């Protein structure tokens, strides 16, 4: 989880700074962090409030932005077997960053690298999510309170911070899973061209859905080929 923290820390500060800079009340800015806890949606909500958008628009758009969670949840479903309160906590804490950590853990579990330690994926997910929640909330408040001092910190673009945080994981996926390379190239090319027309959450959802369709199409082709071989 620690490698993901710089991204959460910087975006928490930027989020708090955005609210503070627009002179919104601290309670309003920080309540989005501890109630909603979904970074991209929170950014949209605060910007929409600043622009004076209607409440219904804010609610509907925030829900649409969060639709990407359906793919995260479905992707982790096979790994998470928990019940009761843990089930609720996992649902609340499943953010973009926590999903990346969980997906990495899932792969290690499948490779049986961490079975000896007797750790469950859901426990790691809750721990990572809780830690992310604490850091995100503290940074929101710090960013808000020190918004005047933080102006100089944000000369480095937020795009660079995001790409820098996740580039290492993409490189390691490429290195460790040669069978996934064609898929990564296909999605990267598609993502590159989609970036000319779409932005932020719409782009993210578009790439996730197209990636899923490509993978499903490849699997379907593979299944058909196997069936034909069996017939022959």
């Amino acid at each position, binding site marked *: 989880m620690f490698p*993901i923290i710089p991204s959460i820390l910087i975006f928490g500060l930027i989020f708090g700074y955005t609210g503070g800079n627009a002179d919104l009340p601290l309670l309003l800015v920080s309540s989005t962090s501890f*109630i909603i806890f979904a970074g991209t949606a929170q950014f949209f909500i605060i910007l929409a409030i600043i622009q004076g958008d209607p409440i219904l628009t804010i609610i509907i758009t925030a829900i649409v932005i969060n639709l990407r969670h359906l793919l995260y*949840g479905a992707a982790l479903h096979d790994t998470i077997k928990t019940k009761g309160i843990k089930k609720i906590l996992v649902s609340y804490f499943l953010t973009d960053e926590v999903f990346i950590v969980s997906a990495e853990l899932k792969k290690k579990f499948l490779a049986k690298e961490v079975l000896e330690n007797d750790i469950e994926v859901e426990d790691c997910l809750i721990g990572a999510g809780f830690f992310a929640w604490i850091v995100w909330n503290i940074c929101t408040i710090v960013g808000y309170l020190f918004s005047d001092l933080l102006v100089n910190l944000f000369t480095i673009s937020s*795009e660079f911070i995001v790409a820098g945080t996740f580039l*290492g994981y993409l490189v390691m996926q490429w290195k460790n899973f040669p069978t*996934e390379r064609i*898929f990564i190239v296909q999605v990267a090319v598609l993502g590159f061209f989609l970036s*000319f027309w779409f932005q932020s959450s719409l782009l993210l959802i578009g790439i996730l859905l197209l990636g899923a369709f*490509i*993978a499903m199409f490849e699997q379907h082709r593979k299944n058909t080929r196997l069936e034909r071989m069996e017939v022959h």
Partner: protein
Amino acid sequence: MDITELQVFIPVFCIIGASTFTLRAVFLYILPEVMDSSVLKKGLSSVSNSLLVALVIPFTFFINGIFTPWRVEVLALIIVVPLIWITKKPGLSLMIALCIFLGLDFIFI
């Protein structure tokens, strides 16, 4: 913003928070139960790789949807790739990229 407006927004946040939570829970626990197909499972297992690509490619070459590849930041990110490959420390990529960026920024600008 007065206290009345604030009182309006807190329930709005609760509605959004509850819907976000419900979306996560439904797709984490309920929907996959009814999906039992190798094709669908393959599609869902691709999400983590797609997410990484979606967070790296557009954010490296685009700023606010405009293609801007000729920047020191892009050069720093390209230099990071072989370093991560050799060190096998993906979590340090941002720190290494920041150090390279600050170095290049100091040399060229």
